[in-house]
């Protein structure tokens, strides 16, 4: 079957078997290996990607189910050479040791901050409660996400780029999940609001 989706802002059409999971589609077909594949049972959360701006465990979503939707992987976090504040935060606060859980943690953090720009420690811990860091570096992960919340400067830069994208997209409804740049323009709107 044919699937068409937007991955990190780029429209992609591929021919796949219906049973292909989104995590394998991203890693093996698109060769975006930043998304990690861990427990295979929707427990560990290292495969988290954003679907229309919302974190999902891509080992338990069929690529077919993502047809018509906007996917953001860890490769889509940075804007050109400018890191997302979440990425910067993980650097500043040593939010990773082995790095295996990091892509999923950072995408969940991005979605959290898009909806709640000033989360407290409890809200951060709840947001990442479906993800496992086997290095048990949770304290530094929480600090990294706090750092990102306190330093939205890079996000503002990212915002400008996303808003420009949204403006060039005015012919489409921003309310439909299928709209290619919806996830990004929604999060940009929320930051502005």
């Amino acid at each position, binding site marked *: 079957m044919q699937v068409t989706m937007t991955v990190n802002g780029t429209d992609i059409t591929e021919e796949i078997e*219906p049973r292909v999971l989104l995590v*394998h589609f991203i890693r093996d077909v698109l060769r975006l290996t930043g998304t990690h594949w861990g427990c295979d049972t929707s427990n560990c959360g290292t495969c988290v990607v954003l679907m229309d701006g919302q974190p999902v465990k891509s080992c338990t979503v069929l690529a077919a189910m993502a047809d018509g939707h906007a996917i953001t992987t860890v490769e889509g976090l940075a804007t050109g050479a400018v890191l997302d504040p979440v990425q910067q935060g993980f650097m500043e606060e040593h939010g990773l040791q082995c790095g295996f859980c990091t892509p999923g943690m950072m995408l969940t953090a991005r979605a959290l901050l898009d909806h709640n720009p000033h989360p407290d420690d409890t809200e951060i811990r709840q947001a990442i*409660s*479906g993800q496992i860091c086997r290095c048990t570096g949770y304290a530094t992960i929480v600090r990294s996400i706090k750092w990102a919340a306190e330093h939205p400067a890079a996000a503002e830069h990212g915002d400008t780029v996303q808003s420009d994208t949204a403006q060039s997209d005015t012919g489409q409804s921003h309310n439909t999940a299928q709209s290619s740049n919806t996830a990004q323009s929604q999060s940009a709107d929320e930051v502005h609001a």
Partner: protein
Amino acid sequence: MQIPAPFDYARASTVDNALALLERHGPESRILAGGHSLLPMMKLRLARPEWLIDINDLFELDFIVRGADAQGADTLRIGALTRHTTLLESDQVHALFPIITDAEKVIADPIVRNRGTIGGSLCQADPAEDLSTVCEVLGAVAVIRGSGGERLLSMAEFHRGPYETAVAHNEILCELRFAVRARTGSAYEKVERRVGDWAVAAAGASVTLAADGTIEAATIGLTAVGQTGTVGAAADALLGQLPTEALFIEAGRLASVACDPIADQRGPVDYKRHLADELTRRVLRRATERAHASATSTATQEG
């Protein structure tokens, strides 16, 4: 690597279209909603459908609406495709049925809750499913559609046993209906080994107070301890009584005797009976507090 066996995939555009697809592809076709129960089962070959009918585009099944039913009774209707996250974040659901909010906080984890649906949870009918207990406690009515029209089932009729419901292969669970009652409170509490795990045991309760402060109606449900339906004996002991700690202790004892847990990796039988006892007391306490609050706010509105 865990990958499902080969199958064919179709995406439904409306409920009628989904019903037509189910008819066309026969008994080996399955509805795919959030997928967080079905896909793991397919990876393990515990399920091996030939066709998946994806209903994630059926926005007509994603709603929370309060209104009068055909008989004029105040009712909250929840569409089967409503996601756990939506239920958890709904102020209306929390105000009317806090037991749903209590349960949603401890169902899986926030990311799984972004995908999982109330209809999918009920149709999966896992014996440890929190929302099955919640729906039984609230006396929910399941609305099921087939090519011949709509039928309404109580939870007792809906649940046939572990992983088995009354929904036929060519039917779809479309919504759940909950009767709104005055002076009523409800609560749910679960003990789990870690975030996102199935319950070791859990309990839910709904309590309605009469104008004189006695208990007019009560239901108690238990999760993952071999209890089918609500615990009638424990609820009956409460009727007509003033809510007191001694009464809750007695109800907890009756619930722990009524249930039939099995020993497994989540704990031995005596521990699970202890949890059934303790959790029943806790949810009765909290449901009664909430019923008092509901009675007070009703009185204020009427005054």
